[in-house]
């Protein structure tokens, strides 16, 4: 039998620290509380010190990190609340429920702030589709997201999916939820007011998900992840829909002082956090908690991760008024305790005290580790790339066809048509573009959001990978005509006890921080997911960025598709001779090596601003970020999304670099725009005034994509054929 601290996932040193804080040995329940709250998942003990490097302030930030979600003030008294969270390990163990409850969990974080959730995004990573288990995980995750999001009536409007062998045993399921709130109605998760009542609302408490935070989320996988199934929760989107409506309605009464959802570590976490934030204490009696199963111990009640539950702090004497609203929606609300002034989380079982711990000790006093960081040995080797060792392809058209069939680039329609992406009537730009655009009803404003990350870049250079994730996400919203304003994130890494992982993590944070500072997009919150490895083999470091952009006039929104034949096609930015980390190198030459593309943050900002300036002058007919697969894939996507009669391009390129780098290299800070020929001069003038290289590279055509380079014809492909390949690649692989 292992030591009692190991059974709750703690180390010997941590156990000693607990004894020191308590001044005595903890009883089993108290130890369980610490096990949950001091888990990596709840305490961020390995990441907290490094996360402090992020820039988190700015004139638009109404709420930075520390609450359930960040809030950005977009003017007119409106706040946008957004946050992302991972549900990687539950999804690896049971993809349908793992993904479904991931969606449910992040939605609760948003309406806990008093906001109505208006959109969902999913950033997903799986192994290669040739692998049967990866196909099973993909199918299960998509079905789980679709089950939960569609039922609850929040549109799933964007996200990304990438496939790479490194995620085969440890898929990533990161979900971002976005909501809107009147800035003066933002709710904080605080147990204010001694004597106020504590209500537990929503689903009954069962034995599901016990130790989800400590033993599932905060450890690497062994050989048989299915054995951890009992630690996965089960989701009920209908119950959560009732909770959303009931909570938003109850907040209107003014009787509620604080709201907190129950997520990882269940009641333990919710109670200790609301008390610690307010500097108060809480006394609750587990006997009052409505249960799904009989004979549950206090331990099980406190650590259950049953879904769809909320903790509501209600002004004393108004419990009945509040309960009335919940019962209108058919929801149980149980009065389980009260706010005290002694700072203790006191747990009773039928009026007998069974645990007594200072709330701050649980919520704030977990150790913060400055773990060793060492540059991984693999980097010097993989960063080597001699371009002369990469043979030039014989037929560039064939390469383009190969790239559009790569599941990483191919159309994701098969996925997003399974999600309701239109409910709530705000989706102005539908999935498949650079970012999703949501109008704000009753005015001219809109917001643009996307998620982005390139694990391969971060594997080859975590600093650049972090910076590029931010830069590209910002470029995506800028290409829709939105000013990037803030980010949230989900940082997916391997085992933090490995110094190489910590080095990657620190580098990545530095890269992201520098990009956020330059682009003036502070970090409003985020999530760290460590231990993403199986049998000692970690995933690529994958920093997922969720970017928010604001559009003042929704009529200036841009989409990638070409609009009319004859329009000038302009490339904003410059193409360097670089192929490191590209999809081309991976899909065509089966190599993952080199350095990721160079990222110059000043040029990045200038390029985005040039695009925005031109859009505000209403010069542009389309805009599209140039990224995976390079210029050719970008042009192909502009054709796929084009209006009838404008589905082609005729390009003449003159850059004196290798043709494959020119066509398929992934140089950063590039946006392809189109405009009437008469406006091309002005667009270039705007770009140059910002110091951004820009030139006309061709014209919109119809039916074919033709490219000549220095007098020779490199590409001449039929768009309808190419489009078919792009559209069918994923569904055909799954058949």
């Amino acid at each position, binding site marked *: 039998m292992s030591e009692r601290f190991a059974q709750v996932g703690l180390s010997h040193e941590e156990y000693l620290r607990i004894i020191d804080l308590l001044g005595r040995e903890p009883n089993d329940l108290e130890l369980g509380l610490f096990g949950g709250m001091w888990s990596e998942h709840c305490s961020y003990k390995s990441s907290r010190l490094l996360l402090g490097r992020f820039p988190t302030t700015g004139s638009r930030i109404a709420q930075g990190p520390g609450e359930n979600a960040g809030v950005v003030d977009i003017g007119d008294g409106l706040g946008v609340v957004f946050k992302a969270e991972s549900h990687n390990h539950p999804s690896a163990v049971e993809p349908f429920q793992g993904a479904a409850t991931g969606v449910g969990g992040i939605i609760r974080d948003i309406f806990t702030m008093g906001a109505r959730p208006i959109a969902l995004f999913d950033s997903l990573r799986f192994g290669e589709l040739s692998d049967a288990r990866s196909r099973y995980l993909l199918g299960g995750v998509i079905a789980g997201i*679709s089950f939960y999001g569609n*039922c609850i009536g929040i549109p799933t409007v964007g996200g990304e999916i990438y496939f790479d062998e490194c995620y085969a045993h440890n898929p990533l399921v990161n979900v971002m939820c976005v909501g809107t709130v009147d800035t003066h109605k933002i709710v904080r998760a605080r147990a204010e007011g001694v004597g106020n009542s504590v209500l537990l609302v929503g689903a009954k408490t069962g034995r599901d998900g016990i130790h989800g935070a400590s033993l599932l989320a905060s450890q690497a996988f062994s050989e048989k992840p299915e054995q951890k199934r009992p630690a996965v929760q089960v989701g009920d989107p209908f119950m959560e829909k009732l909770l959303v409506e009931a909570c938003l309605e109850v907040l209107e009464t003014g009787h509620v002082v604080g709201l907190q959802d129950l997520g990882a570590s269940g009641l333990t976490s919710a109670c200790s956090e609301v008390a610690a934030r307010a500097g108060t204490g809480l006394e609750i009696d587990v006997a009052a908690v409505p249960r799904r199963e009989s004979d549950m111990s206090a331990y099980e009640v406190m650590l259950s991760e049953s879904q769809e539950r909320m903790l509501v702090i209600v002004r004393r004497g108004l419990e009945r008024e509040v309960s009335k609203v919940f019962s209108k*929606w058919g929801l149980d609300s149980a009065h389980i305790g009260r706010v005290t002034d002694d700072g203790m989380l006191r747990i009773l079982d039928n009026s007998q005290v069974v645990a007594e711990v200072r709330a701050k000790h649980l919520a704030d006093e977990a150790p913060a580790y400055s773990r060793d960081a060492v540059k991984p040995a693999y980097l010097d080797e993989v960063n080597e790339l001699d371009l002369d060792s990469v043979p030039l392809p014989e037929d560039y058209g064939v390469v383009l066809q190969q790239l559009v069939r790569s599941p990483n680039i191919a159309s994701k329609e098969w996925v997003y048509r399974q999600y*309701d992406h*239109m*409910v709530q*009537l705000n989706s102005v730009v539908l999935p498949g573009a650079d970012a999703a655009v949501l109008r704000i*009803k009753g005015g001219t404003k809109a917001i643009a959001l996307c998620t982005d990350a390139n694990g391969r870049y971060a594997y080859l250079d975590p600093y650049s990978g972090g910076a590029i994730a931010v830069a590209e996400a910002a470029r995506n919203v800028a290409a829709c005509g939105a000013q990037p304003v803030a980010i949230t994130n989900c940082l997916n890494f391997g085992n933090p006890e490995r110094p190489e992982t910590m080095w990657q993590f620190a580098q990545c944070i530095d890269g992201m921080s520098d990009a956020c500072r330059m682009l003036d997009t502070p970090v409003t919150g985020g999530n760290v997911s460590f231990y993403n490895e199986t049998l000692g083999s970690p995933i690529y470091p994958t920093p997922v960025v969720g970017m928010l952009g604001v559009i003042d006039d929704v009529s200036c929104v841009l989409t990638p598709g070409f609009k009319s034949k004859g329009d000038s096609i302009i490339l904003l930015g410059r193409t360097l001779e670089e192929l490191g980390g590209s999809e081309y190198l991976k899909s065509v030459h089966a190599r993952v090596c080199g350095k990721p593309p160079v990222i110059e943050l000043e040029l990045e900002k200038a390029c985005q601003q040039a695009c925005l300036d031109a859009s505000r002058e209403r010069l542009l007919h389309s805009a599209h970020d140039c990224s995976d697969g390079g210029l050719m894939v970008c042009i192909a996507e502009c054709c796929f999304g084009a209006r009838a009669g404008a589905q082609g391009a005729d390009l003449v390129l003159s850059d004196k670099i290798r043709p494959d780098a020119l066509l398929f290299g992934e140089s950063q800070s590039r946006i392809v725009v189109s405009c009437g020929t008469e406006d091309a001069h002005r667009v270039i003038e705007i770009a140059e005034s910002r110091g951004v290289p820009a030139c006309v590279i061709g014209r919109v055509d119809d039916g074919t994509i033709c490219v000549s380079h220095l007098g020779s014809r490199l590409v001449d492909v039929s768009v309808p054929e190419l489009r078919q390949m792009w559209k069918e690649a994923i569904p055909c692989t799954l058949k």
Partner: protein
Amino acid sequence: MKWGVVVFPGSNCDRDVLHVLRDVLKQDAEFIWHEQRSVSGYDCIVLPGGFSYGDYLRTGAIARFSPVMQSVERFADRGGLVLGICNGFQILLEAGLLPGAMLRNDSLEFRCQHVFVRVENADTPFTHAYQKSQVLNIPIAHNEGNFYADPETIRLLEADKRVVFRYCDESGEVTPESNPNGSLRNIAGIRNEQGNVLGMMPHPERCSEKILGSEDGLHVFRSVLEFWGGGYCE
């Protein structure tokens, strides 16, 4: 005239329909809570899309027993106008206000996409602002839209021109490829014998504003307004 939009627990297009009626068409419209036992005072009742009661047993199967549905049934029997959209259509089938049943989509997947439907009957209170055979660009979003009825019922529906909308391609051809869910005879919407109850799987409220890409659905609501003889503001 006065519109009522029924809110079942789990309805999720209720606010969307209300938005189109109030903010786009400037109509007098309000929610009707599912526990309400009377629907007097309303001239048209909309059963919106969503997952009423979670749709856990079978789509619409529980909603059909909610208190409000008894009064909606009486309202329909007396000739009141009832429009069921998506889950609302499924509830009308379960309640027996319309014939047939919904099976799971033949793809076995939820489908959310723009489709084309052809107006088969422009002589109903819900469609007379359209031309017969007009092709509409309209979104669907459902898991169970695969309409089924026995051959005799289908024969009657066709003979009485009770098929109101049919899935088609962009040019108006009714083809197997343009059928997104496997429904019999590409049926997307039907009316009852009296003509005062319409059920449709596509969402007209999702294409009633130019900014959302199509205004083709707006005429469903406008038809009702004209039928009623009430004016409306642009």
